[in-house]
């Protein structure tokens, strides 16, 4: 099937493909097969002869249920290609092909190394590197923000209270105090308005490639044209914190990662909160509302209202509920 996929790519390459990519694809090709957690999905990183970096990435899906995600990603890549500031910060689309009952999406490969792999190889200067990573993320978000239309979404204090009541067990440690505190902050800040912007949908460090040109992001299956970006930023900060190795575990437990990123008294927590506040200010929101918006976004995740690709999954909601409970207990 790989040969069929490569033949389809050779035979129907659009004119918009960069010349150097088209020239590379004409050479003999081989591929690494990257398995996916999704059954029915297969991903190939295609290499030209004597090449050290992949030229293209082919994503193939046999399941009709998940094929719309590939179409969505294809549209997203086309839309991103229209934003000048996003050049080289996201893959370029090569085409969408039907192979029998399967659907294949072809896109250019991004240079660099995934952030979670880099984090697992850092032995020293982690603090400086992490600061650089967060700065790169903020630059990338600023580039994506050029697609903003000016619309906003309100943060309704009553909705926040309702979601907290659903997600938190009132008898769990600190839950009642957190809800009371959030009610006070809700009265203080009222309806905050979050500007909407294009969203990636799954801003995990494993999807972020860092290299000489900065940060670029792959896997746009959860793309949303306009949405509030708070959940996306929080998702990155949390997943980044839990990808940083600790003395006790090279791959920390998610709860330990969250504690290190948001609750502990260390450089990582200071960096995480600093990035969160800076992003709020960038969006025109008060930095004093950092804790309020953090808890509100955690409640959104725990109840399935967050604007991310996997927020509707029960397992994801359960995990975020655990983090919210931990925050209530240890804040």
């Amino acid at each position, binding site marked *: *099937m*790989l*040969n*069929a996929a490569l033949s389809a790519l050779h035979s129907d390459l659009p004119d918009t493909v960069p010349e150097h990519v088209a020239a590379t694809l004409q050479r003999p090709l*081989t*591929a*690494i*097969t*990257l*398995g*996916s*957690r999704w*059954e*029915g*999905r*297969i991903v190939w*990183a295609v*290499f030209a002869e*004597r*090449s*050290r*970096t*992949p030229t293209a990435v082919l994503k*193939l899906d*046999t*399941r*009709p249920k998940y094929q719309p995600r590939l179409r969505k990603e294809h549209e997203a890549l086309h839309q991103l290609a229209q934003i000048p500031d996003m050049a080289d910060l996201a893959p370029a689309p090569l085409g969408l092909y039907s192979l029998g*009952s399967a659907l294949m999406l072809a896109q250019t490969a991004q240079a*660099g*190394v*995934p952030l*979670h*792999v880099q984090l*697992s*190889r850092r*032995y020293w200067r982690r603090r400086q590197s992490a600061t650089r990573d967060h700065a790169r993320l903020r630059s990338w978000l600023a580039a994506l923000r050029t697609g903003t239309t000016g619309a906003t979404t309100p943060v309704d204090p009553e909705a926040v209270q309702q979601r907290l009541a659903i997600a938190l067990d009132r008898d769990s440690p600190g839950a009642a105090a957190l809800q009371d505190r959030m009610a006070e902050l809700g009265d203080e800040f009222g309806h905050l308005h979050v500007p909407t912007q294009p969203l990636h949908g799954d801003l995990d460090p*494993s999807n972020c490639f860092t290299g000489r040109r900065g940060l670029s992001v792959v896997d746009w299956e959860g793309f949303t044209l306009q949405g509030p970006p708070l959940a996306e930023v929080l998702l990155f900060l949390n997943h980044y914190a839990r990808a940083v*190795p600790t003395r006790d575990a*090279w*791959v920390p437990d998610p709860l330990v990662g969250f504690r290190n990123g948001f609750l502990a008294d260390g450089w990582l927590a200071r960096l995480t909160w600093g990035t969160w506040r800076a992003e709020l200010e960038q969006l025109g929101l008060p930095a004093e509302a950092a804790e309020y918006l953090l808890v509100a976004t955690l409640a959104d995740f725990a109840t399935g209202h967050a604007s991310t690709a996997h927020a509707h999954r029960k397992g994801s909601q359960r995990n975020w509920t655990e983090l919210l409970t931990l925050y209530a207990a240890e804040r």
Partner: protein
Amino acid sequence: MSTPTTASPKKRTFPPPPPRLFGPRSLASLLDLQPEDTVLLLRPDQQLVDSVALRGARPTLVVPPKTKKHNRPKAPHILRPDTVPGPLPLDDAAVQHIIMPTASLAWWREPRWIDELVRVLAPGGSLLIGANHRLRTPWRRATTLTSSGARRRLTTAGLHVAHTYGVRSSLRELRFLVPLDHPGARRWFFTSAYPSPTARHARLTTLLTRLPRTGLDRAYFPQLLLHAQRPYDAPC
């Protein structure tokens, strides 16, 4: 007084699940299967059988004689030789492809069993065969099987080894098939695709990215998959 008869519950029918591409069943996607090709499957699972059938080819199973019925995959053509490994009840050049995801050490230790596979394979046909570095006899007297050793045995039997894949499943449940013959792809896998689960892994991976292919690769690819082809000009 007649007792009321209850209608038997209607049996629910579900559409067949779509083919799964990864795991043993993904092996079929590595071959250029043509409709009506005969594919000989040794040690198959049902998903692999189905994935071959879905591509229009004809799966033919080889089932060891003492296999229990509930462990036996279902297929239209099943062969039951007296011993496995052993002589196959097939004519010369009878099949276009052979898939053996996990070959036991017995297959690799006896050249005649590899020769038996070559005998039934048609000229131009492909053989996908797995090899495990950690295969041992019960007494641990056998040496480990290296990729070069496996290649040599296939070459001696008259096959052309087209690709050698390293098979890796990581802690994150992702699985990788890495063409070890392509130095760039191998290096990219170590530098960019493999998240190190421990500090020791991270250091070794960093070292391996700077080295050419060595025996240390075995630590990362305990299983190999060899894709060999029988030349067209091979004597039948």
